């Protein structure tokens, strides 16, 4: 029964992956890669199957709020369940995770030192992420969230570059600080979420059905939960872990972190903060609209003057993730759909960026754009991929970024008051600033004359690097060309949340 639920397997497979890796010899690269490739392929297959089956079930008229729902008691005194269930959004997030885990495996094909330990932590990290997306019980969700955060410390601290200990410490401490807020918020929801006489519950759906949290508490808890998740979503004053953390992390970790882990923030924001505390969301959205609006423009401007490739992308992530939270706070279906599209798009795009930066760094041993140039001539494949990633980032039609940003802008523009208008227009300016910093990098790094004679002897991408990038580019273009099925799936999944919001006004 327990293993009969497909969702459980999304946690079981990574755990099997852990076990498999544990059995491998420390430097037996063949076995390690074998386990990683097998399991990540299985996960990818499962995710694709899940998406297809989800769409099929929806098409067949299954209107349940969540599918594959199941719940097992875990700890009776506090009524903690291992409750799983997915809607259209979680399904897509699982798919995103699988794609990035898959691509990340190939991107870290030659990780050194301690390959086995690296992949062990990497698998643990993905276990946490998968667990987070399948959970509908706040406690297990939080638990998986922490499981995803902690390996980050070691992954950055051991396999990172530059000021890795500092960055790892900063990242972990700031995110843990965020989770402290979050825990407070979750406990508040737990204690206030059920009406008199009912047992307290952690289950998100049940709490939303009760809709029992009184307005005063909602406001407080909304701030706690939104800030808690917002830290992970790199919201303006709490984003500073991101540049250092990303800059120092190894390639695959940057990919997974920017690609998926930052999405946990956005996902949590709407799944818990907005969904369970709709009144407060309506009341207090403006505060966070200001902060996220600042994030968008601020991140973009900061990225314009950076010289380290990873810093540029980290600030660009601040800008793009700001866009995600910004759109969620618009509290209407279109904008929130755009937010999810932006999550997917940003996940794939940033993963691609970090993968490419890792590959370039692996060859030139520098990430300073002033010391490189004309890479198109030396490594045309990577150069072209970098340009494609850049175009995806600046919102070229036919790439996912365009779809996401446009959906966000059109959704956000539904608010007719001056406050929203000003912030939406400020947010739209980011598409120009993004173009500025992307083209600045492309112009200096990829195009132009060759900067360093030593680079002339460098080689182009290997097959595993090509596989990794092609996977991501295919997904980016896939979303960009055929966005409508995604958009519809997401819009449908937002119905309960938007209904809750409408009820709470």
């Amino acid at each position: 029964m327990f293993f009969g639920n497909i969702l459980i397997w999304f946690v079981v497979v990574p755990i099997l992956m852990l076990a498999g890796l544990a059995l491998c010899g420390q430097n037996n690269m063949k076995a390690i890669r074998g386990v990683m490739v097998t399991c990540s392929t299985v996960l990818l297959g499962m995710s694709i199957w899940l998406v297809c089956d989800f769409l099929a079930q929806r098409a067949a008229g299954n209107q349940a709020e969540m599918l594959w729902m199941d719940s097992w008691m875990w700890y009776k005194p506090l009524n903690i369940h291992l409750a799983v269930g997915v809607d259209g959004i979680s399904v897509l997030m699982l798919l995103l995770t699988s794609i990035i885990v898959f691509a990340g495996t190939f991107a870290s094909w030659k990780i050194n030192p301690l390959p086995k330990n690296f992949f062990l932590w990497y698998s643990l990290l993905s276990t946490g992420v998968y667990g987070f997306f399948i959970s509908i019980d706040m406690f297990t969700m939080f638990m998986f969230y922490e499981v995803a955060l902690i390996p980050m410390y070691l992954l950055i601290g051991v396999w990172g570059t530059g000021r890795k200990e500092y960055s790892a410490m900063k990242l972990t401490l700031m995110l843990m600080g965020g989770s402290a807020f979050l825990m407070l918020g979750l406990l508040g929801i737990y204690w206030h979420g059920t009406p008199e006489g009912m047992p307290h519950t952690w289950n998100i759906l049940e709490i939303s059905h009760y809709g029992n949290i009184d307005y005063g508490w909602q406001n407080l808890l909304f701030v706690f939960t939104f800030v808690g998740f917002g830290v992970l979503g790199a919201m303006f004053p709490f984003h500073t872990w991101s540049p250092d953390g990303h800059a120092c992390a190894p390639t695959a970790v940057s990919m997974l972190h920017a690609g998926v882990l930052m999405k946990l923030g956005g996902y949590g924001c709407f799944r818990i903060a907005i969904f369970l505390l709709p009144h407060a969301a309506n009341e207090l959205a403006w505060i966070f609209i200001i902060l996220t609006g600042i994030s968008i423009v601020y991140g973009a401007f900061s990225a314009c003057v950076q010289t380290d490739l990873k810093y540029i992308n980290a600030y660009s992530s601040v800008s793009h993730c700001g866009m995600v939270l910004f759109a969620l706070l618009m509290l209407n279906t279109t904008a929130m759909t755009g937010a999810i599209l932006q999550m997917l798009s940003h996940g794939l795009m940033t993963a691609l960026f970090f993968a490419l930066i890792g590959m370039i760094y692996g060859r030139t041993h520098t990430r300073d754009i002033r010391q490189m140039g004309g890479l198109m001539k030396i490594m045309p494949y990577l150069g072209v991929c970098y340009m494609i990633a850049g175009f995806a980032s600046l919102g070229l039609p036919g790439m996912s970024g365009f779809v996401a940003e446009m959906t966000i802008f059109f959704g956000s523009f539904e608010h007719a008051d001056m406050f929203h208008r000003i912030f939406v227009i400020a947010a739209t300016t980011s598409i120009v600033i993004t173009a500025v910093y992307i083209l600045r990098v492309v112009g200096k790094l990829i195009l132009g004359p060759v900067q360093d004679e030593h680079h002339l002897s460098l080689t182009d991408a290997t097959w595993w690097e090509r596989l990794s990038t092609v996977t991501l580019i295919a997904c980016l273009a896939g979303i960009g060309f055929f966005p409508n099925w995604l958009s519809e799936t997401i819009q449908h999944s937002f119905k309960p949340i938007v209904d809750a919001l409408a009820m709470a006004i």
Partner: protein
Amino acid sequence: MSVTLPILILAIPLFMFLLLGIGGVKMSRKLAGILGITALGAVAVISYYVAFTYFFSGDSLFIDDGVRQQCQMFDVTWLAFTDRMVVNIGFLLDPISAMMLVVITTISFMVHLYSWGYMEHEPGFQRYYAFLALFTFSMLGLVVATNIFQMYIFWELVGVSSYLLIGFFYKLPSAVSASKKAFIVTRFADLFMLIGILVLSYYVSNAPADGPLGSASAFNFQMLNNNAGVIANTVVGATFMSGSVLTWAMVLIFVGGMGKSAMLPLHIWLPDAMEGPTPVSALIHAATMVVAGVYLVARFFPLYCIVPDSLTFITIVGAITAFYAAVVACTQIDIKRVLAFSTISQIAFMMVSLGVAYNQPIEGVHYSGLGYMASMFHLFTHAMFKALLFLGAGALIHAVHSNDYTKMGGLRKYMPITHWTFLIGCLAIAGIPPFSGFFSKDEMLAAMYNNHWFWGAWMSMVAGLTAFYMFRLYYLIFWWEENPEYKKEGHKPHDAPWQMSVPLIFLAAVSCVAGFIPFGEFVTYNGEPYHIHLETPVAVTSIVIALLAIGLATVMYAKKNPLPAKFKNAMPGLWKAAHHRFYWDEIYQFVTHKIIFNIICRSIAWFDRHVIDGTMNALAYVTNFFSVKIKGMQSGYVQAYVLWYFAGALVLAVITWICLI
């Protein structure tokens, strides 16, 4: 006509882009070139067929009771934001899109053919053809857009293909920065266009669904244009900064067009874009992409007519730009830049023509479609002769290996084909009958005089300047004084190979005869035919002005003489300012680099590193500081522990005692 052909028109270039882009590395140059040219030839044939069918078949789908209809050949949902905001990808066939199909595919085919000779020895030949295919796809998608959002999508795509093509010689820093500049400036303009679209679609989509607008998508051109009056009534209450929201929306959308069409003050990218290969300049920066702004206004013409303020704005912007660009063109040294400024000036001409196509709104809505028709006519003829001029310039550059006219002179003996075709181009643009430019320009001037004498006089002056600077260029290249370099062995310039000459001759021929096309029969603002007749006074005036200007140019530049230098010395300030394009680039450089980059970006980055990050580090530091301080208590010195313990015990004892007492 089934939907197959329209789909093929879009699909073939896209497929060629993917094929050449992905598989190009493995192909030989010849194969790639032949593939690209054949595919474009096929697209051109299909487009001709489609346009021919549209104009001449008499199918009731296309022409109904003498009125040409708009027809959506297909329109499939691409993305639905909301029920009312649905983005479709479709194929709209109407007079202007059919005309544009012909223009784009003709020029593109010519450029493909020409490039085979011109780019023969360049590395990345396959990539070049892939980008050309991408551009053709995007431009075709733009002109056949059924809705404003599709137009925006392809609008961005042409921007990117323009970026890629300008930066084709990616090893040259100047090409890279020019491509960057082109993309960012147009992107900046597109931002306004996007906001305009946002505003427009917001008000349209929030109109009551049971109202006259129905529940159609708020982006659809047909719906918007057919219901222009209704929309004006719907949003009549909404104002922003004392202008109606609709005016704002239309002006903002036009700003997007200003960016692409290089209107003042967003023109700065176009002269720099000449860093790209010359055939690309001919295709993108003379004939097709840069007229997208004109096309946009034409596409939205009914809506623009509802808000006359926006048309006035267009007229003013166009008039200023036309004059400015013409003056600057008189002083440039680089022949491609002269042509670039000439392009700006001519596009501004079209803009003014569209802007004046609306008469004073004395009672109700009343437009005079002459300006619209003339503008489209000029778009058509200008595309042909400007492409011709650019390709001719390409042939010259190919022969002389320089963009600079001071390296040329006396070339007429060496390159007869180029010489004659270039002369035809110059005559056409100067407006000398019977070449095509005369007819279209005459119609435009007539429309301007109809609106207000001032616009007519102003633009006549610009037309005179046009004739002057074109013949100045012509004489300086082909007459003046022969460059002694040519006498040396191996440096003798010669005409281009057949791949390059054929397009020149073809386009020259088109420029000779295009003026006689009864354009008004095909393209008018409302689909009803308009009979072109020459306005004798206007025609005579403009011919006289053009001849005078040519005469002046002949006197000054036909033979080497000190006259130009005298003029230059007579007004050094003006000449210098014009030569430096009135310092627009410097102003932009200052604003972008000094203010935005150095002040805003750097201070934000500094703020982030020192204030935000500093706060976090300070938190860590404070924690650390206190823990270090407290750590002293846990020193491990037993003696200290004893002392603390004993002192603590004493204090406790005292407290207890006091309490007991």
